[in-house]
């Protein structure tokens, strides 16, 4: 029986129940204060003047007319903020305001603080910037071939940001064992988070030299660090408060120029300064899904068992580093955790182009390779005459195993996920049996439950929780995590309520305030439920221990008899003998002093020790399987997704209603990516963003969004709090490949590219009608000079997780 981990085997009272969200009443009544809702007396408004050219040297900036405009209080340029920053220590390549060069349309060059927003807008027109245009680089191919001009003067030469090459096991042997080898090429177009809330930030610099920044950020801790660095003031004098995020999806995970700018303007003017980005600016902030071109070569036995996989990915990074080095590794990391891949080679390259920088979007670097992998498996199944279900089901990575690239898989409920959706969708009676124009497709996926390593190297916990109990019976949970809609505030309350036997709505949750809450690394990489959940669990158990000792003494019953439920602490053998929760706190406070406890969480060490092993390890992996049923109109190429069945291995639901919400939201976002969403540019017209507006950037409405049938598979993972794993990102992954696999079943054409927009589908259908291949997608990938791979023996080959010394690696060749 599931218990609340206490000494007494009590059934769970909160965990697993569909409680309402603790922050939702405020959201239903308009009371939640998002960043743009906060105002302070004497507040100024800031605007950032952004470059209208994609690549140019800044010859001069004249701000004199702007500063002379009545109502303008301050104007700053790059010279005022000379220190570079960036989310990753290896790519500190951004300036809050460009100093001598702009790298994309939207790169900011100056900022204004004015009495009101209209004046700030007006002042922007008065700033004169003289640019000397440089050749712009708009595609992966351009970036690989154009050595000069360079967008940045660091990286792997020319306009190449990063190249990686990793090889696990004897690839030659692997391909030699194969009965069939397939090579395929895929393209996944970039797309953006499109949070409904436009980014906003408000800075206040007070009389004793301390700075406070309120910002719609997913990562207040990293913003805190970036502010200290760029403003040259001690971190101890800076307070960052993350406001409830009106949607994040990864798009609010970088420290942003507008955050640094308002802080600087507040310091200069001595007045609070707010900035709220326009929707157009949100498109320029971006940090969304990288466009990725992929080549994958896979060897299989007749039964579909993979003998080796060689995967190449080419990422269009846009103008800055952002999370790009991590994104590059992520395009090669998680291929191995679903189906057994005994030998694996990954080569990846990220290039700079003169476009808004790409970064992490829901699934960070993994939906693109997952698309390639799941579509290729479908093709392999067809070639081998196997059912797409069977080829996957037979070769699953076993639980409690280590993959060829040294990822430790704990629980794995993928088999059960596949069974659920296959049965519910009536797959056996539909696959290859539906009339022309209607089809069904299957795909799977897996995602991290938190990155195993922090962004900057350190040995400290990834998540901390402080708990304060007061003698009135109040409980306050303090944690650095920020609710971005995923429900992290509620998860903290549920877990603490479960352990202390109180109602989640009794608890005050105070989060994401660097002055008041212990560090949590942020709401990214699906880490919060597992990591802050474990920290909260530890803090709550420590508090319960103190209360238990005091109550047992008072009631004169053995410690192991004390249990907590329904706002009481009582003798489990004689439930009438007990005290209220508030009395329990009073007894403990009398005995021990003020009751405050802490909890923290550090992920287990990864078995991989090679260079590059930092990306991919996680305390646990979630799994999903989805079946999509779609109609394809052969006259128009329009795909209508009629139904999605999805099963998600959640480990254990802390709250099944919230889990379902995350699954359905992921399916929705996956469908948007599969069918319509794309960040595209007019390459021949100066890399102008085609549609930086909701008018043109299409996303699914209530009418495009289909019914979703969700199944939760509960296979508790030993590393999760109460066994819980992630759900915020993983369920997106199977959707795009399942859609195009359904298209193939419907009309017999392969769309090896995302989004599968009607023009592409129609072109493939028409070509097929002419007796051609009936495929839409890239034909090849450009040549890349790959570095010699770093070689690692697999666990099966007796490897220890370290790279082979270079000489030994060469001798082996």
């Amino acid at each position, binding site marked *: 029986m599931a218990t609340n981990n206490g000494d007494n085997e009590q059934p769970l009272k909160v965990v697993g129940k569909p409680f309402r969200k603790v922050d939702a009443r*405020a959201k*239903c*009544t308009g009371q939640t204060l998002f960043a743009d809702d906060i105002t302070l007396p004497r507040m100024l408004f800031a605007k950032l003047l952004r470059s209208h050219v994609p690549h140019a040297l800044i010859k001069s900036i004249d701000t004199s007319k702007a500063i002379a405009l009545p109502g303008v209080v301050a104007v700053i340029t790059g010279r005022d903020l000379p220190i570079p920053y960036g989310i990753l220590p290896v790519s500190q390549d951004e300036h809050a305001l460009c100093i001598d060069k702009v790298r994309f349309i939207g790169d900011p060059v100056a900022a204004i603080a004015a009495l009101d927003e209209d004046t700030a807008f007006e002042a922007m027109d008065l700033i004169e910037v003289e640019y000397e245009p440089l050749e712009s680089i708009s595609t992966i191919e351009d970036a690989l071939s154009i050595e000069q001009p360079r967008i940045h003067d660091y990286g792997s030469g020319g306009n190449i940001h990063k190249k990686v090459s990793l090889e696990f096991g004897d690839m030659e042997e692997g391909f030699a064992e194969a009965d069939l080898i397939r090579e395929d090429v895929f393209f996944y177009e970039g797309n953006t988070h499109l949070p*409904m809330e436009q980014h906003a930030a408000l800075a206040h610099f007070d009389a004793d030299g301390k700075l406070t920044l309120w910002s719609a950020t997913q990562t207040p801790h990293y913003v805190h660090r970036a502010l200290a660095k760029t403003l040259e003031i001690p971190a101890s004098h800076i307070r960052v408060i993350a406001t409830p995020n009106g949607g994040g999806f990864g798009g609010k995970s970088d420290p942003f120029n507008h955050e640094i700018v308002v802080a600087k303007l507040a310091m200069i003017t001595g007045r609070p300064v707010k900035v709220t980005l326009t929707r157009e600016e949100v498109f320029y902030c971006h940090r969304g899904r990288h466009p990725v071109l992929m080549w994958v070569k896979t060897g299989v036995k007749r039964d579909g068992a993979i003998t080796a996989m060689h995967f190449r990915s080419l990422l269009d990074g846009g103008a800055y580093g952002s999370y790009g080095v991590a994104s590059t590794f992520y395009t090669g990391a998680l291929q191995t955790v679903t189906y057994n891949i005994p030998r694996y080679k990954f080569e990846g390259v990220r290039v700079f182009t003169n476009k808004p920088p790409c970064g992490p979007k829901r699934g960070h670097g993994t939906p693109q390779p997952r698309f390639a992998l799941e579509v290729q498996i479908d093709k392999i199944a067809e070639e081998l005459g196997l059912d797409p279900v069977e080829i996957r089901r037979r070769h699953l990575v076993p639980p409690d195993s280590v993959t060829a690239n040294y990822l430790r898989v704990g629980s794995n409920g993928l088999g059960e996920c596949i069974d659920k959706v296959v049965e519910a969708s009536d797959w056996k009676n539909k696959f290859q049996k539906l009339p022309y124009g209607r089809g069904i497709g299957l795909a799977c996926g897996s995602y991290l439950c938190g990155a195993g390593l922090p962004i900057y190297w350190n040995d400290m916990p990834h998540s901390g929780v402080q708990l304060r109990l007061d003698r009135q019976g109040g409980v306050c949970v303090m944690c650095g995590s920020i609710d971005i*809609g995923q429900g992290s505030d509620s998860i903290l309350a549920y877990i603490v309520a479960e352990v202390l036997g109180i109602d989640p709505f009794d608890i005050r949750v105070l989060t994401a305030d660097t002055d008041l809450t212990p560090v949590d690394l942020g709401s990214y990489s699906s880490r919060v439920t597992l990591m802050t959940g474990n920290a909260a669990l530890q803090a709550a158990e420590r508090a319960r221990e103190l209360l238990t000792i005091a109550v047992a003494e008072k009631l004169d019953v053995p410690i192991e008899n004390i249990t907590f439920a329904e706002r009481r602490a009582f003798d489990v053998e004689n439930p009438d003998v007990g005290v209220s929760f508030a009395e329990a706190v009073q007894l403990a406070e009398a005995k021990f002093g003020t009751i405050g406890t802490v909890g923290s969480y550090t992920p287990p060490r990864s078995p991989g020790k090679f260079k590059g092993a930092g990306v991919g390890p996680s305390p646990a992996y979630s799994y999903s399987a989805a079946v999509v049923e779609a109609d394809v109109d052969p006259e128009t190429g329009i795909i209508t997704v009629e139904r999605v069945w999805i099963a998600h291995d959640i480990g254990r639901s802390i709250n099944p209603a919230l889990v379902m919400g995350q699954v359905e939201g992921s399916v929705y976002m996956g469908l948007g990516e599969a069918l319509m969403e794309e960040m595209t540019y007019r390459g021949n017209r100066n890399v102008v963003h085609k549609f930086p507006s909701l008018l043109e950037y299409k996303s699914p409405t209530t009418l495009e969004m289909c019914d979703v049938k969700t199944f939760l598979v509960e296979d508790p993972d030993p590393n999760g709090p109460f066994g819980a794993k992630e759900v915020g990102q993983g369920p997106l992954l199977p959707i795009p490949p399942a859609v195009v696999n359904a298209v193939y079943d419907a009309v017999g054409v392969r769309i090896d590219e995302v989004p599968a927009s009607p023009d592409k589908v129609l072109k493939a259908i028409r070509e097929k009608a002419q007796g051609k291949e009936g495929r839409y997608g890239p034909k090849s990938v450009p040549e890349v000079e790959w570095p010699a791979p770093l070689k690692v023996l697999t666990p099966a080959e007796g490897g220890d997780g370290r790279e082979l010394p270079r000489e030994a690696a060469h001798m082996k060749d």
Partner: protein
Amino acid sequence: MKKTININVNGTDHVYEVEPRLLLVHYLREVLGLTGTHIGCETSICGACTVMLDGQAVKSCTMLAVQADGASITTIEGLARNGQLHPVQEGFWEQHGLQCGYCTPGMIMTAAHVLSNNPDPSDEEIRHGLEGNLCRCTGYQHIVDAVQYAARKMKGQAATGD
């Protein structure tokens, strides 16, 4: 030149002199401090700024405050009465019709409008009624559930004469 306007918002008359170019959403947020009405796109696509104007759901980002002169407006802050949530608000809370909550006020106002026109809608009719409101979090399914919950609740109230 500023113009004097008189707008009844959430049951109270407000008389202000405003610039003719002032958008209704800015009037609500900045002049009256009713920040529950959100701005999401500035192009009347997303619906986060939806308010009720003389019983009609309108997108307040594409309407001037002066155009609302003489009208009665209900914003999300005025929907609950005497501390009692409106059934649609209750539905969104109870049925997990929200995640980040940013689209929620506009979504709730539109849903209330849908139900005032059609107290017994099908899921399809709800989806049609909400097609002008975007949500990036939920996939809409729980939103439809929330509106159905409200419809049942409102029918129950009508039946019992509450």
